[in-house]
């Protein structure tokens, strides 16, 4: 894994962006660009990072950066990758360009899943990073296919009858790995060297790679903005967010959690789960705990681990 001293001092994602205080996505972008290895183009889907980092005439990006729309970061990346390939072959371009597509969970799990699937199937050489804050935080905290069971959002409110989102989270990495791509991984910004190493790996792969990174959101998950990395760490330590990678189809658990912290520690920190602590909704916490246990067991078994 990469060491702190090996990271470039230069900041390619600059300060002065307008992301919220404590936003995990800002940290993730900064770390992402610390992992770049040369000429890079970033394609950014519409979302928090996009709107907060490029309010015209300002930009936080010291690499070439393109925003086209919400649902198509992977398709735009396909076009850029294909174009550089053609131009290089024709002698009109002379260097390799790394293409990184970045989208939130809405732009990945929901509206962008088709474009992502198409790009993975076609085998474009690019890295796709989904920063997952588990709802449409940019438009005001609406539920997505990545929102966990029980979480309150503005379209899955903590109702008297239905206490938050009834459905469970999609298995994004399972979907991506099923395309037979060479590299897919999950990560948490609290484990910075794991994440940066994964970005480096994803760029080195010839062909598509996907990284699914937990992105703590003080506003939408409702916790104090000083607690972002704590939430991101607890997500892993409670086994809520297993950190693993799939290399050429082979699963590997990167962070072992032999003695998990109680899931409620993670839930209690976040206002989006506060309604679940009313006695009548206790069973929802149990349901989420069961999902976490089963998901952990499933990942362990895929990784060939026993505990």
């Amino acid at each position, binding site marked *: 894994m990469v060491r702190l001293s090996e990271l470039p001092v230069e900041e390619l994602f600059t300060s002065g962006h307008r992301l919220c205080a404590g936003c995990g996505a800002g940290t993730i972008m900064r770390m992402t660009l610390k992992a770049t290895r040369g000429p890079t183009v970033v394609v950014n889907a519409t979302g928090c990072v996009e709107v907060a980092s490029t309010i015209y005439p300002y930009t936080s990006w010291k690499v070439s950066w393109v925003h086209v729309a919400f649902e198509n970061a992977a398709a*735009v990346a*396909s076009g850029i990758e*294909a174009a550089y390939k053609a131009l290089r072959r024709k002698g009109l371009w002379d260097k390799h360009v790394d293409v990184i597509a970045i989208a939130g969970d809405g732009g990945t799990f929901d509206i962008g899943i088709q474009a992502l699937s198409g790009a993975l199937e076609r085998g474009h050489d690019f890295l796709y990073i989904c920063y997952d804050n588990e709802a449409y935080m940019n438009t005001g905290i609406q539920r997505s296919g990545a929102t966990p069971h029980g979480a309150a959002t503005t379209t899955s409110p903590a109702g008297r009858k239905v206490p938050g989102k009834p459905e469970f989270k999609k298995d994004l990495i399972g979907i991506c790995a099923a395309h037979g791509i060479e590299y897919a991984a999950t990560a948490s910004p609290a484990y910075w060297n794991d994440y940066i190493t994964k970005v480096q790996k994803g760029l080195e792969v010839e062909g598509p790679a996907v990284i699914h990174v937990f992105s703590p959101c003080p506003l939408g998950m409702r916790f104090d903005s000083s607690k972002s990395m704590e939430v991101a760490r607890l997500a892993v330590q409670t086994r809520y967010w297993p950190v693993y990678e799939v290399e050429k189809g082979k699963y590997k658990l990167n962070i072992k959690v032999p003695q998990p912290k109680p899931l409620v520690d993670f839930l209690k920190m976040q206002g989006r789960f506060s309604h679940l602590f009313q006695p009548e909704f206790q069973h929802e916490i149990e349901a989420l705990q069961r999902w976490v246990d089963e998901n952990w067991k499933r990942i362990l078994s895929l990784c060939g681990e026993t505990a």
Partner: protein
Amino acid sequence: MAKIIGLTGNEAIAYAVKQCDVDVIAAYPITPQTIMVELLSEYVYNGEIDAEFVCVESEHSAMSACVGASLTGARVFTATASQGLALMHEMLYIASGLRCPIVMGVANRALSAPLNIHGDHSDMMGSRDCGWIQVYAENAQEAYDWIIQAFKIAEDHRVLLPISVNIDGFIISHSMERVEVLEDEDVSRFLPPRKPIITIDPAKPITVGALCLPDYYFEVKRQQVQALNESRNVIREVNKEFESFSGRKYDLLETYGMGDAEAAIICLGSTAGTAKAVAMDLRSEGKRVGVIKPWVYRPFPEEDLVKAVGDAETLAVLDRACSFGAPFNALCSDVIAALYRHGRSDVKVFNCVYGLGGRDITPADIRAIFNEALEAVQTGIVKEQLKFIGVRE
């Protein structure tokens, strides 16, 4: 020396694209355009053109990939029709807003519902305000010629806008015609590789597609209006240069018999061919009729059109698409607006909707329209301002 071959409209467009040394083609099949995409993939897979063929999973992704590719400085082509164009709608505005000189072949087809695969202009008319230059070709030859000119117009630094070259679905896309094709070298001389002004070259990083709030958005759009309007001059320049070596003359619009016409038909695409043939017959009978065919629909050739109208007193404007609930349909509204703007509200106009979902328009239909226009010249009265031709009422 020019070569004469038999090509359908789809084949003519694919052949032209092949000669234009494109770098990226991103497309998705849809009737009646499919053959364009099939042929282009065949050219790429056979090594006849050195391009990347991105076989995307939807038209939305086709245009998205085209935008991305175009931003690198590559020469980019796509093709679509109907539902595919509708699915692209969001991206059409982004392609023009980001000033990507993409060229797109469109085999115009009706929009669902009900589902219909045949030709009309509903698709492109539904996207007429998307900031693209929009050309309508009458036949395979024109489609071939306009595609070659389209790259040159779009990529001109004074323009930098995407262009759609439209052909009537099936009527042109699938009919084989005599097409005079140019030598590869002549096309290469006319159309050297694209020289982009600004690209996303990582050595000189730029931010493209930033969020523009009320303090800047309006200016960006204002510039786009100006660029589209000023593209008329570049189109004319390119037309002249093209004529100088191909011998084929193009302009913003074509006229027939307008020197002394009292009554005229204005229409787009293949129907203009029928209209010219009928006008020729009528003129041989001593009737003073003419035809105006806008080649370029956006930017609308308003000055040329008003000039072409000349002393004609009545115009029948034919629309192959419905603007539901509007006083008139798209082409007719534009014609009336152009006349009004240039102080010619005296010209009598009526609007004929025809050919929806591929319904034929016959020479007899056209003759009846001309006769009605001539009658209005005599009586000074337009009987019906809005008519539906050949429909069961």
